[in-house]
């Protein structure tokens, strides 16, 4: 019997060695403790949690059927949303490219510009669009300008970072050749750098436009224009069937945006 157990123990198959297992258990244990802490400590009134499915389905029932009333308003707001996203993307291009230029290792004029560029990119990327919107609503008052600026300020970081990386990845050799012809810096950029980053540029701008469409649907919740404004209004007045229509409209908008994006990608790239 003992023999048999010994034999079994020899045959136990271990997938990981001792150290790996130790690390795995430690990670698991820490995760578990963090989760237990989070569950016990979080400020939640638990009976509400058990009631949540009821509440959610209740809300769903109140939304059904979607109401067609105010469809004209919704369509106008959707168009405004698209305008915000498109204009903001368009404006971003002019601001993001110079930043990308100074934030790329190989084109930056000097160290100070490099760090300035990186600082702009990081601050732009770390602040969410809706927080930018909050700030601009406080400055310029509620309205589309705050929304456009919010999206511009968030997109600078995105487009600037990716374009900067594209510039850093270019083939150095044409640059060398252009310098050898006696071309000035501006001409070297126009001939050796711009053509190389063009495809990346289109891809990045199209990608960001798609993201901006989604982002601009929420700007209205802090008063920065677009479909979010009437969504907030309908929720505040408990007009749930209208809310349902607006939600459907947003899905439609996002899907159309995706379709346009993939069409553009195929046509342009």
């Amino acid at each position: 019997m003992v023999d048999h157990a010994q034999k079994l123990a020899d045959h136990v198959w271990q997938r990981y060695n001792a150290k790996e297992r130790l690390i795995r258990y430690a990670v698991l244990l820490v995760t578990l403790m963090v989760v237990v802490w989070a569950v016990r400590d979080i400020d939640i009134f638990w009976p509400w949690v058990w009631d949540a499915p009821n509440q959610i389905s209740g809300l769903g029932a109140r939304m059904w059927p979607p109401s067609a009333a105010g469809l004209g308003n919704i369509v106008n707001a959707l168009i405004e949303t698209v305008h915000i996203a498109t204009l903001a993307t368009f404006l971003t291009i002019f601001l993001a490219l110079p930043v990308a230029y100074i934030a790329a290792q190989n084109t930056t004029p000097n160290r100070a510009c490099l760090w300035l560029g990186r600082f702009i990119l990081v601050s732009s990327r770390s602040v969410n669009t809706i927080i930018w919107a909050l700030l601009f609503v406080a400055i310029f008052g509620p309205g589309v300008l705050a929304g456009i600026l919010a999206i511009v300020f968030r997109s600078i970081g995105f487009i600037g970072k990716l374009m900067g990386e594209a510039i850093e990845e270019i083939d150095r050799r044409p640059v060398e050749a252009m310098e050898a012809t006696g071309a000035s810096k501006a001409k070297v950029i126009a001939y050796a750098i711009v053509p190389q980053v063009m495809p990346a540029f289109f891809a990045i701008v199209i990608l960001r436009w798609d993201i901006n469409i989604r982002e601009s649907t929420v700007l209205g919740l802090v008063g920065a224009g677009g479909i979010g404004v009437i969504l907030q209004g309908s929720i505040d007045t408990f007009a749930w069937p209208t809310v349902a229509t607006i939600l459907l409209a947003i899905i439609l908008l996002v899907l159309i945006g995706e379709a346009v994006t993939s069409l553009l990608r195929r046509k342009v790239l």
Partner: protein
Amino acid sequence: MTRPDAQASAPRTWKKPPFIANPLIRYGILILAAAYLIWAFGSLPFNWARISEGLPRAARIFSGGFPPNLERYELLITGFKESFQIAILATLLGVFLSIPFAVMAARNIAPMPIYLIGRAVIIISRSFHPVIVAILFVAAVGFGPLAGILTLTLYSIGFVGKLLAEEIEEIDWGQVEAMRAAGAGYLATLFYAVFPQILPRQVGLSMYQLDSNLRASAVVGIVGAGGIGGTLMNAFGRYDYDFAFAILLVIIAVILLSEGVSGWVRKKIW
């Protein structure tokens, strides 16, 4: 040098071949773009009177905001603690729940009607910005972190589920056939032939999702779904700009830190 005299008499010109060959389309696109810009700028309701007050207001906000004030750090810590808790619980729930939805949304292992349901759930949860989902959950279950957790869980299902479904669609089919040949049932096949192939990806995705949930948890609070966003919104609402800027700076720091940690962990795992 050999000079071709015949052609030298007629000066040859050269123009850069245009990007779009058809001139009608080329100028059409330009005109359309210009017309669009004019229409968009013209039709948007800019409130110029209010906007013109912007600069003095900006000056007031920024002079009120500097230096950032960390005196009420307790409020800040409470807010961040809640954001962390929301992010952790939502990531856990989202990553677990994304597995069944990913299986449902993978064309190669889900039957057609189930596939459509799975895809629809993923598309819908991806179409809505988390803030919109949050505002609905706040309406349904009230203010507080519960709405935040529900929101980010749905957000995670959408994101992780989509990538995971794509991963499942690309698995090595031979292992599945081997399991089936061994007489394994549907669930056994899933557990032995499908999940082991997607598990490494899933761990990396969870780290990524934890990072992006932490970012998102900072904003869902703006519509009342708990966390640091609510604290920020309150500070803004009370014109308490020095505290608001302090919160903003800490949010940026935490996001950078979490991006760094998440990147480091993912590099370790892969």
